[in-house]
């Protein structure tokens, strides 16, 4: 039913090699389930993709437990080399060098990601790589509020999408700024992204059977005539331990 149709759309979203996918959420509705969903798809048995996961928010065992319920064993996959996990929770980017600040932390992190991507993406083996960053707001915290460093870092990461055909999936929070002037990072991100997914709570408040609504904006969707078009879809969701139910608004009683 609806769920299948939406799943199909989602498949198209997840077949997004070389693209930048941005997930935006808020305190009331976490968008982390989308990250888990995409991770599960990338790591499924049918695909041979490799996921490079840069964790700023949660430790490995958090994702391991969640993905186990979704049918992926991250320990086995990381032993096979299909899942590379960088725990960046203690990253402090800014070092004081002779009174001037350097951004060595983020540069080092980019080199790590670049190196991992280059080793995997040899020209003879056409393996798709997905780079996931689980909380961009914490990258900004690590850079002590310097959003320009974060934007620089993301631009560098974006070059990997063309250089080695990586997919970049980013999670950020929409409601962390008290005024619009400070949200330069979010605006920049929306420009960088090819696909933007926004998770929001229902306007009517908290409900036990609908956890929120999702807006997917695909800037480069190809329609039936083969033309590139912007496409926006809205649906609601209910998150479960081993799956997520998607349905169109009003289709559930």
């Amino acid at each position, binding site marked *: 039913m609806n769920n299948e149709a939406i799943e199909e759309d989602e498949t198209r979203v997840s077949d997004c090699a070389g693209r930048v996918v941005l997930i935006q959420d808020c305190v009331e509705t976490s968008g982390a389930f989308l990250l888990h969903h995409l991770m599960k798809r990338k790591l499924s048995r049918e695909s041979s993709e490799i996921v490079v996961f840069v964790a700023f928010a949660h430790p490995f065992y958090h994702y391991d437990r969640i993905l186990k319920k979704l049918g992926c064993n991250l320990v086995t996959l990381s032993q096979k080399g299909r899942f590379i996990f960088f725990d960046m929770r203690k990253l402090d980017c800014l070092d004081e060098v002779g009174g001037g600040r350097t951004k060595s932390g983020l540069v080092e992190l980019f080199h790590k990601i670049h190196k991992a991507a280059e080793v995997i993406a040899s020209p003879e083996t056409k393996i798709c790589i997905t780079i996931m960053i689980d909380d961009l707001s914490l990258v900004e915290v690590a850079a002590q509020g310097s959003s320009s460093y974060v934007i620089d870092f993301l631009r560098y990461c974006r070059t990997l999408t063309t250089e080695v055909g990586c997919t970049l999936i980013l999670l950020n929070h929409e409601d962390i700024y008290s005024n619009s002037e400070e949200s330069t990072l979010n605006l920049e991100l929306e420009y960088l992204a090819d696909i933007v997914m926004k998770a929001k709570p229902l306007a009517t408040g908290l409900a*036990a059977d609908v956890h929120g609504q999702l807006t997917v904006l695909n800037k480069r969707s190809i329609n039936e005539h083969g033309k590139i078009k912007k496409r926006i879809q809205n649906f609601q969701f209910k998150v479960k331990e081993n799956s997520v139910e998607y349905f169109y608004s009003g289709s559930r009683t």
Partner: protein
Amino acid sequence: MATARSKTTSFSRNLTSAGAVSHIPGIKHGPNGTIFSPPESQTLTVKILGGGFPLGSLVMIMEDAEAPHHLLLLRTFMSQGLVHEQPLLYASPSRDPRAFLGTLPSPVLSKEEKTLKNEQEQTQGESIAVNLICGSPWRGICSVQSLLNALALLILQALLLFVIHVLDFWKRFQDEDKEMSKLLTGYQDMVGLLHVHKVAQINTQVPVILEASTFSIKLQRRRSLVLERLNQAPVDGSSGTSYNTSTSCSGSSKASPLDF
């Protein structure tokens, strides 16, 4: 043979780490491999927050500048740690933090229990209560982040001796209002309102839908803190209505129904 096989099954439980934790007083296992520190009074965390504070988490109490009732919650959390004989670290910008510690509540005990308790030494505590004042907001977030990482590390390496901070609380005190007193029964006894803003999702992707997010705070005979559910649970379409299920989460005599 049989034991070797049972070890390789995917359902086998890691009993070594579980066993190491189970002997710590005031610690119990929750869903999704989380470990909770349930409070002495079962009111807040067990019935409202669903089990207690998960170890390694961060609880934020957002105060109302005009009312001192956030200290009431802080005292209750701190005393819960003390009751379980877990170490307690209290950091505060105030000049005389000892004065605050002197106001911590003690558990409600019967007369016999009281005499027993008096014979014992003052117990140690468990949690970290920090009153943060930071010059720059980014510095503040960084220090909270480092604290969280330290907590997570201690959970893994120091066998969960530190308390978990769990949630974000947002507390608001409302001035006496005649209209409100008509709407809410027992309004005279209420000292404020508690709003649970966010509940942590640890080791799970399913959001926690609380039965209610707004509670009234009452002090009974100036001794015990009582929380009562104020709003109704969200209606679950699949399981019918949630009306008429309102019970007091504190176990006190009556809930506070809204008269409309």
